[in-house]
């Protein structure tokens, strides 16, 4: 069904519409199904992060101490052979007589229907608008779709709210390291000479470390007494401090080439300031290139944050992130008895996968020469 529509633009000679580079790039991007899938997934993920308090059934800090390490509850639609609205079975529990471990079993006699837009714990939207409506929930008992952690906190809610941290770290981190990278790379490439040599040396030193060790070292600089919001800022800063160097090197190469182009020479001959030439004449020329570089580099920030938080050097409670949630699954004991704690990992994989899809499609779309 999509075949004819995707054929059309290439066969037609495009009558009125001017084929600007951007439009051509968009057309090529649209041609990549993986890129489109990735883009849709990313939009969904960021919407989920935005509306996380509404989508999650419970607050991320409330501890249901009677439901510690409860396994995920399944949603059913058939009860005794007949179709019903979606419902769950409440969990009953007893203690293992030997190990005193809680053993959960579904109570199949009392199905509890899932209701939508239920009232629950109050939360604040964007820091202002207060509400207590949640997308779904149950009237009596509890419904933990992904199970609970060692304090009896709902894992689904924590995963959804954790998306806010995990997904924002990459975007903010990229913005910061891009600013540094563009300035350093631009200055280095534009001025050349001693400045260039010194900056290149610095970049070389930054790049001669494997990422993780220096990331770990920098993360331990963040004082443990800091509140979790500051730690978040600190982690973003650490990630961008690592990320700018490779970018600066690339920008330098591009600026070095662009410096000799006629219109830049013309701008210089007209007596424009150096900063203005870099920002207004050289950089716009690199926009598509920088956009691709940003998308391709972004997953490493998500992975970096998750690795740091996983090792306990990243995001701090009561904030939560996917890496921090996986930290609970680190011990072999947890992996054996509570394997559902691994489920936040799926979102790391999906988000990185989506970014890689989009990044590859953007790179192909921006690459005019290969067409």
């Amino acid at each position: 069904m999509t075949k004819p529509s995707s054929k059309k633009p290439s066969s037609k000679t495009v009558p009125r519409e001017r084929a600007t580079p951007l439009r051509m790039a968009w057309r090529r991007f649209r041609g990549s199904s993986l890129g489109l899938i990735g883009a849709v997934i990313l939009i969904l993920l960021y919407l989920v992060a935005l509306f996380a308090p509404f989508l999650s059934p419970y607050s991320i800090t409330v501890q249901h101490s009677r439901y510690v390490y409860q396994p995920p509850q399944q949603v059913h639609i058939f009860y005794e052979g007949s179709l019903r609205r979606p419902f769950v079975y409440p969990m009953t529990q007893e203690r293992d007589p030997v190990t005193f471990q809680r053993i959960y079993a579904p109570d199949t006699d009392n199905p509890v229907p899932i209701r939508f837009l239920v009232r629950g714990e109050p939360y604040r939207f964007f820091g202002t608008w207060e509400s207590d409506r949640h997308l779904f929930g149950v009237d009596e008992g509890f419904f933990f779709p992904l199970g609970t952690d060692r304090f009896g906190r709902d894992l689904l809610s924590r995963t959804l709210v954790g998306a806010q941290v995990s997904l924002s770290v990459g975007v903010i981190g990229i913005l910061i390291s891009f600013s540094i990278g563009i300035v350093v790379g631009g200055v280095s490439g534009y001025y050349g000479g001693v400045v260039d040599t010194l900056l290149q040396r610095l970049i070389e030193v930054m790049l001669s470390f494997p990422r993780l060790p220096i990331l770990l070292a920098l993360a331990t600089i963040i004082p443990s007494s800091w509140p979790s919001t500051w730690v978040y800022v600190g982690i973003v800063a650490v990630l961008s401090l690592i990320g700018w160097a490779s970018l600066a090197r690339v920008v330098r190469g591009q600026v070095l080439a662009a410096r000799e182009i006629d219109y830049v020479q013309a701008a210089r001959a007209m007596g424009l300031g150096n900063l203005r030439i870099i920002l207004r004449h050289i950089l716009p020329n690199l926009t598509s290139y920088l956009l691709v570089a940003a998308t391709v580099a972004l997953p490493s920030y998500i992975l970096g944050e998750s690795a740091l938080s996983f090792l306990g050097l990243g995001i701090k409670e009561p904030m939560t992130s996917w890496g921090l949630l996986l930290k609970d699954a680190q011990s072999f004991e947890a992996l054996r008895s509570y394997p559902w704690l691994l489920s936040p990992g799926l979102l790391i994989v999906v988000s990185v996968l989506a970014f890689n899809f989009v990044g590859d499609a953007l790179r192909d779309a921006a690459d005019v020469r290969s067409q």
Partner: protein
Amino acid sequence: MSLFIYMLRRLLLMVPTLFLVSILCFVVIQLQPGSFTDRYLEDPRMSAETVARLEQQLGLDRPAYEQYGRWVWGIVTRGDFGFSFFANRPVSSLVGEQLFWTVVIASMTMVFTWLVAVPLGILAAVRRRGVFDGVTSFVGYIGLAVPDFLVALLLVALVLALGGRQVGGLYAPEYIGAPWDVSKFLSFLNHMWIPVLAVGTSGVAVIMRQMRANLLDVLGADYVRTARAKGLREGVVINRHAVRNAINPLVTIAGLSLPDLINGTIIVSIVLNLPAIGRLLYDSLLAQDQYVAMTLLLMTSLVLMVGNLIADVALAWVDPRIRYD
């Protein structure tokens, strides 16, 4: 001869970079809030004077530049990397074995990566746009997206769910301290596949993709058409003519993917309790055992530089067209 001079020049160029790297290591570690002796201030059994004396003994009361100078001087003149406050041993005795196992795990991973990725890449290129190509490309995407530590966790969970117990550590506990023999080696292999798979998945994805792309480039070249035109069998065309040329750029990729290999080894060794530098680095950073942390940071950087040098030399070796200048 020229190769020798090239290597010598590269090695000499490493010296100033390493020097700057050592400064950076030192600065980062000095920026950590507090110091190693802070823990004793809370201890009711230690008086403030005792802590001060300890600080003096460990050299922590001296100005930063002096500490740095002594450290570097010790390394350059005596190969002495300082003293581990925590383990109460010289750093070099602590780091040596860990570094050895790190290199072992990384090398095994590299061998595994190449053995798996190159044939898969060749097959994917030969059967372009086929089912096999689609499947491997998707699996490659997944391999790039799953963090190494998550692969390790998933594999451990899988083994445990299947009732296995052979997870974590280098070999089964009963072999600790035992001399190396066949059964110990088998136990070692039995434990090693998890870290190797966990560290190697992303590398497999990268090399497989690159191999596929390279081979596709080469398959369009004139000499391949010539080879086909003179009636060579397809297998000979692929293996002798195309693959031989497509593999050269992979050597550079191997050098570029070295940091990932080191990163992966570090985090996986923390998850799986392997005696590689990951655990030691982590513990020393948290304990503010400064000389251990600084030395390990320096070592990872050195390993990376040497690895890149080896990759460049290897490239010159497999591709006689490369010239050094």
